[in-house]
């Protein structure tokens, strides 16, 4: 009967409504009813009389009534989903936003600081070819002027320095460019007064140094790319939002602005008309959005349940243990839903960005505008389209009639 009901439901409502709103509402109603069964005598008596111990007809009637009520509540939830999501994105009053933005800004600044350090490390390592040139020149000088001099000091100062860096390499830690440069200079100085061809130890140190420089360069580039991706996937280019989810949401606008100089918010609703023309792309976008709606719904329903049960255990059926479980455990669980929703928003943002990448020319064609000839031309189009749309500035575009098929 349930599978038949779900099939009928899908005929009247989209599967995205069923997954994103109906399932969370159904689950939370069921769970709250289950919790209330041993605790609330009146509910237990009613459930026993009308559902569990009632006749088949009576139980079916009341069950169907409850399910209809759940469907209606899910519809209300679906209608509120945008508002509820924007609440989690931090679309609050200015005074309240100000309290939370500094923490997000500090988070962003921490990533920027690490990114800058990685960039400087890369810049320092870019001088490695010059160190090799210096070593090469010193090698030539030493071979010419000191052909019989052998480099074999005891203790070997370069070995100790290299051992320290090799230990970092073994542990996959960062090898600082400054230390590598010091060793390169030490080798160059040694080579100036010795013949490397007769000093196998120097040769070995040089080969190890070369390997470490390559490793340090690879690590620095990888770290720089990773931090840049972390910054781009966590924060947009515009004003910082007071919540993690809000900043993830801003990454879509940030990407499109950075890449195409386009104000994504003005074209998003137009894009949503274009994407459904491609079934696979539409399915990917809708699936990502549905999962996001599901998690946002779970967050708010968990919070609502926690508030209701806290009131019950504080005022109606006082119980310290139950009050602590509801008022502390509930918000903790809601926070887990929020973190999951923030991560899902990242996936949704990826799909939205990909959709823009794929369908932006179709969007321009729908607006009867000529497709751009190169990147600069495209950026000019999006920038001036934004000026026209957002600010009403006087901008002129030549329309292109649709192609006759």
């Amino acid at each position, binding site marked *: 009967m349930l599978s038949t009901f779900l099939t009928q439901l899908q005929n009247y409502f989209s599967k995205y409504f069923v997954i994103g709103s109906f399932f969370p509402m159904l689950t939370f109603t069921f769970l709250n009813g289950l919790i209330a069964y041993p605790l609330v005598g009146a509910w237990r008596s009613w459930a026993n009389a009308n559902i569990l111990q009632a006749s088949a007809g009576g139980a079916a009637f009341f069950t169907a009534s409850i399910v209809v009520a759940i469907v209606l509540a899910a519809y209300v939830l679906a209608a509120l989903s945008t508002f509820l999501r924007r609440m989690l994105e931090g679309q609050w009053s200015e005074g309240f936003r100000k309290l939370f933005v*500094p923490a997000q800004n500090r988070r962003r600044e921490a990533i920027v600081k690490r990114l800058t350090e990685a960039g400087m490390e890369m810049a320092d390592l870019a001088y490695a070819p010059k160190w090799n040139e210096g070593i090469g020149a010193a090698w030539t000088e030493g071979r010419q002027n000191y052909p019989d001099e052998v480099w074999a000091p005891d203790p070997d100062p370069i070995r100790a320095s290299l051992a320290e860096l090799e230990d970092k390499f073994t542990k996959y830690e960062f090898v600082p460019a400054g230390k590598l440069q010091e060793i390169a200079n030490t080798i160059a100085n040694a080579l100036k007064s010795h013949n490397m061809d007769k000093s196998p130890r120097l040769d070995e140190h040089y080969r190890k140094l070369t390997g470490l420089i390559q490793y340090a360069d690879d690590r620095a580039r990888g770290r720089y790319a990773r931090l840049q991706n972390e910054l781009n996937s966590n924060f947009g280019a515009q004003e910082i939002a007071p919540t993690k989810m809000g900043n993830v949401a801003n990454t879509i606008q940030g990407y499109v602005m950075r890449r195409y100089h386009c104000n994504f918010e003005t074209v998003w609703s137009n894009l949503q008309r274009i994407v459904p023309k491609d079934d696979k792309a539409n399915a990917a976008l809708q699936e990502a959005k549905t999962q996001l709606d599901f998690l946002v719904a779970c967050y708010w329903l968990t919070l609502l349940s926690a508030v209701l049960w806290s009131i019950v255990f*504080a005022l109606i059926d006082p*119980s310290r*243990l139950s*009050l*602590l479980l509801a008022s502390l455990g509930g918000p903790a669980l809601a926070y887990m839903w929020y973190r999951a929703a923030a991560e899902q928003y990242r996936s949704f943002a990826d799909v939205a960005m990909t959709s823009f990448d794929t369908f932006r020319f179709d969007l321009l064609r729908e607006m009867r505008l000529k497709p751009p000839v190169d990147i600069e031309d495209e950026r000019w189009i999006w920038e001036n389209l934004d000026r026209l749309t957002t600010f009403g500035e006087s901008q002129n575009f030549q329309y292109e009639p649709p192609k006759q098929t």
Partner: protein
Amino acid sequence: MTWEDVKQWVVDRKRALIAKAPWITMGRFLAIFYVGAILCVTFVAVPDQRDRSFVLAARYLGPNTRMARTLWIEPRGQSLSDRIERDRLEEELLGKYVRRPIEGGAPIARADVMPWPDVPDEDVVPVLLDGEPDWMMLNQGSTVEVWIGPKAATPHYALVQAIVTSDTKWIALLRRSDFAPDMLGNPGDKPTLRLVRFPHKPPPPPPPKP
């Protein structure tokens, strides 16, 4: 001090706190404040459920009866929170002694037990038991006879006042007046106990004669 001074003071304190502990964000501060508020409300405003929990006496329990699981019944139809508190009550009742007479089926709460029996101020004779007794049968109020070897030390039976424990030994306390005067002269004698009657409610005292 004006309102602006107060605001500035708060801002300065906030900056100093962030400088010392940058991990403290407004969200975490609010979370800590919320947890503290909930704990205060829970332990100050919400009554202790413990005082409402109870179990039911399985039979008549006289004063100084030592409590065991067999002597009470769990009430039915309790909520989950009541059951959790009742489990705690049962742990606390074990090994304690009844403070006042409790009828069979009557509720037993924390206030009805005490840690040590309140034995009347008269001479008692401790009789060592072989092991932990069946508390339903041998407890305060049980009627017993005591034998020392082949001789009965109690001419008219004896009433157990209480049963106490010392390390792993179980000792029944009986009134000296229940023993024959010449039977307790030798400290080396080892008396043995035999149960004669289960614990029961004593008959009501006869009405005073006019």
